[in-house]
């Protein structure tokens, strides 16, 4: 096994990532303004922005789910305990002693076990809760007929808000972890160019060289 520069993030994946990032930041900004933390513009404009951004994000995710399933990329997010402890130990201890990161990206495991687990949690937990409560909030007029309205909207709002705080915390950690390797740039560039260093097996290398020569650089 040896390291090669391989295209690990396809054009769609990069588009998805950055659009999603933009939309999530827009949603956090407008959402906390609607919540009343600050008043950058009229409530009407904020609600409009929040709804448009939310619907765009959900549309994007419909494509992303299709992409995950049809391209087999869902496999990158399979949780594993193998190497999980080593990675966790690295961030809690090894990183301070200048140790090398214990995980080398592999062709079908481009995320380290801790990363894969976090992203899985994000995609299967955090996002769905925000969407479901958000859609319930948005469509409140359709299900609120009757005496339930008064209290039930409060629970929808409480959960939606709480998970928005979790989302904000995720972004802080996500951005911070970009600084942990050799350089910030080294972490960001793959999501821009698509290429990253991957530990390829001989079989993978010969497959790429033969069938997808554009994806591999010496």
């Amino acid at each position, binding site marked *: 096994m040896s390291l090669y520069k391989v295209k690990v993030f396809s054009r769609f994946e990069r588009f998805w990532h950055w659009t999603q990032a933009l939309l999530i930041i827009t949603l956090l900004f407008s959402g906390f303004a609607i919540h009343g933390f600050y008043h950058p513009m009229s409530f009407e404009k904020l609600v409009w922005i929040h709804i448009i951004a939310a619907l765009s994000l959900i549309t994007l995710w419909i494509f992303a789910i299709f992409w995950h399933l049809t391209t087999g990329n869902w496999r990158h997010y399979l949780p594993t305990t193998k190497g999980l402890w080593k990675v966790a130990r690295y961030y809690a201890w090894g990183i301070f002693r200048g140790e090398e990161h214990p995980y080398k990206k592999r062709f079908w495991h481009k995320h380290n076990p801790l990363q894969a687990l976090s992203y899985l949690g994000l995609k299967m937990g955090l996002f769905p809760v925000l969407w479901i409560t958000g859609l319930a909030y948005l469509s409140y007029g359709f299900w609120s*007929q009757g*005496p339930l*309205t008064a*209290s039930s909207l409060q629970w929808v709002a409480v959960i939606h808000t*709480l998970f928005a*705080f979790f989302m904000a915390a995720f972004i802080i*950690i996500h951005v911070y972890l970009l600084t942990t390797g050799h350089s910030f740039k080294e972490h960001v560039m793959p999501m821009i160019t698509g290429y990253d260093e991957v530990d390829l097996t001989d079989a993978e290398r010969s497959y790429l060289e033969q069938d997808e020569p554009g994806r591999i650089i010496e």
Partner: protein
Amino acid sequence: MDRTAFASQAGARSWVIPFLLLLMVPASPDSYAKDTPKIENIIDEPAGNRGGIELGIKEYEETAKKRPVDKSVTKLGEKEEDKSTTDHSKLEELKGPFSSGPEVTKACLKCHNKAGHQFIKNKHWTWKYHNPKTGQDLGKSVLVNNFCTNAAGNEGMCGQCHAGFGLKDSRTYDFSNEENIDCLVCHDSTGTYYKLPPTRGNKACAVLFEGKPAIDWVKVAQSVKLPGRNNCGACHFYGGGGDNVKHGDLSSALFKPTRDIDVHMAEDGENFSCIICHVGEGHQWSGSRYAPIAKDTTKGKPGLPRQTATCESCHGQQPHPTTLMGIKLNDHTDRVACETCHIPEFAKGGVATKVHWDWRTMGRLKNGEGFREEGYIQGNGEPRHTYKSIKGSFKYAEHVKPIYRWFNGTEIYTTVHDKFDPSKPVEINHLEGGPNDPDSRIWPFKKMVTIQPYDKGNNTLVYMHLWGDDKDALWGNYKFDRAIAHGMKDFNLPYSGEYGFVETWSYWPIVHMVAPKKDALACQECHAREGRLKALSGFYMPGRDHNEWVDRLGILIVLATLLGVLGHGFLRIILSASRRKS
């Protein structure tokens, strides 16, 4: 006495009285002061410095005045031409001569031979309303309000606005005599018809009856048309004793309003008469204040006549366009009345409304005579009375923000029979409804606050004998005890003999003076921590409400994360620097 000396003396005296009045008004307890409307433009300056002082009693003088006729639309689609099939000025029956109102009515009923049967069932005639939901017997004939308090027993005055002739005493009046119906007060289109109180009252009131031109009965009878704003307004704009006193959203500004005052009645807009919305057939009209429709869910089809005066009867359930924000606004219509957003303020167009009335100061006299002080100059430049010997002291407001309440259309009245706890303000009309009641919506109201006499022994409201040429009538004699004793005795009601003063609140639904679209409330007027709906509780409203614990926990999580990564990063930098050194 020379003129200057008189003026200075009068000036000094008129300064003292309001000052004394101010001392007498107690501070309202905090518990119920919080949702009392903000009273704007109240002039605290001594009354004598502004308006003049008048002697004599001239209540409801506007109803006895000639007024400009409006050419309002009385039938949809008849903006340009009158499509009526009859020209009343050509009718033999109306050639006269007539010498009185009932003679004209007799002529009307000759052709309109069902109109009389219809009209005597109407509230304008019976002054009665039985609420089937609450079982209460209501209407002008029995209720106590917190303005002049009671029409019962004072018909000799209040009958001025009865749509009949000669209602001097409701206990003896023949309510089955159709010839006493006053057709002209609603159907005159000359503007020359007027009504005076049926009886003359105390001699101090004589001024009200002076210098009135004779009514040309033939001319008025031949002019009849569907009622314009000037017909309805002659009484309804002056309820409570003067222009816009009672409702707040019904004033003389609506005779000839601009679009800013009322989009529907604006002369430069739709120019609607009252009956376009208050549709009626067979002399029964829609739009009851005793049993309002708080949530109109009837699905009307185009062209289907609806006997309701609701916004929905024309605008439907989904009045906003099908855009993203329009859908969101339509989402509100099940819980928020149209009026709440579309009438941001009332008492517009330069005419103030009365918001506070203190009966305790009634009866101050100048040289043994009653007087009036003009201490408030309203937007259109006209002075308003801030003190009247016959009524006490008043406060006015203009461009008033309504108060907001959940309301399902049911009102429980405190009638003259109902006992209450006088240590708390008494709600004249308690509004039913709440956030968990699907039939309730948030409605705007004018809140009227009054300090009025009550029976201290029985803890009930009282009827007062206000009007009459006798030694008990309040207006002229200025004695509460005699007026109350007389008023209660007239209706065989128990009176302990001792009166006190109680604070009363009444709520007036704000439904007129609909603003142009551009002036409708912006979302953040309510969706804000300190918004207009701050006082309403029991439901979650985005932008206004938040769960404190969720906010605290959330902020804690974000801050802890931030501190965590900063600490982690800081340690990394320190340790990598120390490694490099070694």
